[in-house]
């Protein structure tokens, strides 16, 4: 696919132009946080090293999403039609780890047998412009341990790499090429730029210091469901679910109905396997009564079940859970400890 060079000072203008034409999400400073949100007019998109506090998965898998509308007739429930089309969306400044999360979520939401039309529709209508990490943003980044890299193209439609003076713009997919018109000021990339990119890629991958045995623990997990090790991990866990809400790949949800007058809606909302009520049945029986079981579920889901089902680790190594856990439960340490079982 095509590669171009773009002078660095041109980027902001291009992004703002896109934001004027389409719904564009970008990292934006919001009080003390950098959040991934819709870029309003006159707002500067951020291209600094830090990643967004919230994961960009919410664009395709919103926190609360309308599934079904209905009304009440004298006889009961009557289902209403729903608008068909999602809007064209551009995601700008997505980190390669987060872009990989889309590829991982595709595996679940876009399976052969059951497709999730809400997710797929939004995914189809979107283009992801990824921004390579020329330096790892955090000491807790560990993408290289979970099949990723700071310059991974997985899940992205365009990859931008900061070469110093200019960005190398790689159009990776037809969806990415659909945005080529916006990059009119870019010039074709030469071999020198490619070499530079390669050098940066190697350097940035080497700069990721934090390592965990991501794939290596799978065979251990296969046989250690009952291991006493699990008793040691979750004592201090608050069951707050912050890790799952911040995680770019966590995708568990709840469905609830709301009514007002004669109108009703069915909404799906993010949920978390960390919550005691997540699996509690009407009868009162709960297959996962303890935080130990719930933590084991979270870890197993990411490092075993997902591998079993899709041959992929459901973790992109962004380090959000490590940084946001209020009691400092560090998934890197847990995975490392498991590898020694």
């Amino acid at each position, binding site marked *: 696919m095509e590669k171009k060079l773009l002078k660095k000072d041109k980027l902001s203008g291009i992004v703002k132009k896109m934001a004027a034409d389409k719904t564009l999400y970008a990292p934006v400073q919001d009080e003390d946080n950098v959040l991934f949100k819709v870029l309003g007019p006159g707002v500067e998109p951020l291209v600094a090293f830090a990643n967004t506090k919230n994961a960009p998965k919410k664009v395709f898998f919103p926190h609360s999403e309308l599934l079904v509308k209905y009304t009440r007739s004298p006889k*009961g429930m009557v289902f209403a039609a729903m608008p068909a089309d999602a809007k064209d969306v551009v995601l700008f400044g997505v980190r390669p780890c987060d872009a990989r999360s889309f590829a991982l979520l595709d595996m679940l939401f876009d399976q052969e047998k059951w497709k999730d039309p809400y997710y797929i529709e939004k995914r189809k209508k979107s283009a992801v412009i990824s921004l390579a990490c020329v330096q790892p943003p955090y000491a807790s980044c560990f993408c290289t341990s979970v099949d990723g890299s700071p310059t991974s193209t997985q899940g992205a439609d365009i990859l931008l790499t900061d070469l110093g003076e200019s960005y190398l713009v790689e159009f990776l997919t037809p969806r990415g090429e659909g945005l080529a018109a916006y990059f009119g000021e870019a010039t074709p990339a030469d071999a020198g730029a490619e070499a530079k990119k390669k050098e940066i890629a190697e350097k940035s991958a080497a700069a990721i210091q934090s390592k965990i045995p991501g794939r290596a623990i799978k065979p251990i997990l296969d046989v250690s469901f009952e291991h006493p090790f699990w008793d040691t991990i979750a004592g201090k866990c608050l069951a707050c679910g912050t890790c799952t809400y911040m995680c770019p790949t966590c995708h568990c949800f709840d469905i609830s109905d709301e009514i007002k007058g004669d109108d009703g809606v069915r909404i799906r909302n993010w*949920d978390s396997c960390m919550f005691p009520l997540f699996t509690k049945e009407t009868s009162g029986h709960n297959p996962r009564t303890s935080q130990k*079981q719930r933590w084991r579920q979270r870890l197993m889901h990411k490092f075993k079940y997902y591998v079993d089902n899709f041959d992929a680790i459901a973790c992109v190594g962004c380090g959000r859970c490590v940084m946001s856990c209020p009691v400092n439960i560090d998934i890197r340490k847990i995975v490392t400890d498991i590898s020694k079982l």
Partner: protein
Amino acid sequence: MEKPLQQIIAENPYVPMPVEIVKIITEVETKDIKTFRLAFVNKEDEERFKYIPGQFAELSFYGKGESPIGIASSPTQKGYIEFTVQKAGVVTSALHEAEEGTLMGVRGPLGNSWPIEFLEGKNIVIVGGGFAFTTLRSLINYMIFEENRKRFGKITVVYGARSPGLLLYKDELESWAKRGDIDLNVTVDKGDATWKGREGFVPTVCKEVAPSKENAVTVICGPPIMIRFTLPVFFDLGFSKENIITSLEMRMKCGIGKCGRCNVGSKYVCKDGPVFSLAELDKLTKEY
């Protein structure tokens, strides 16, 4: 722009099909289990809702949400589907208040099913306890249907409830008893003045009936305590784990393997189950 509802239903597994409650049967003396007969509002939805015994569906009730319930009717019964529902949570309680003629929604069929192809040509031993008899009833009605009966060997049924008043489908039990091609053993833990049938727990009755393991498969569904004591009986009779089939229950929401709460190990009960053989269950974790 809005799409017509019928097209959405065809493309979207989250959107229920409209149905009408055409009949409500109170099954037990405690009145907390009722069978709801639902007819599709649109003919094409009935075509779309092609199911096999053992599958389940999500029932939608106005303002209350959805609840996953096993299908109690057999696909051989045309024109309607049936669900036997115990009053327990938000949706089922609302359903129990409903009257005939109420419009609601149904989403499905979901899950795998009793392994019909695997069962074909074999002797089938059905063991059910209490309220968990619903999808077994579907299977029995399917197997004894005229055109299907010859596809299966000997059919033995052991069905137990705590008391005579808690037996489901009493009329059907009577009609099955009159048939010569099904060995029906209905038992209650404790009978009453009018009860002339068997008394005793399901495991004990299974031991007495002692079905042969030759070319036989047993399909078990019931409360965990019943299953726990029944399994050893079948092991003693020589049934292999591949030939013992059961159905799991878990909290579910989406029913299509996305929402992430009903997994047992790498398998989702809603999508890969609810039906598993004991051999399959052995390979999974014990978190259910």
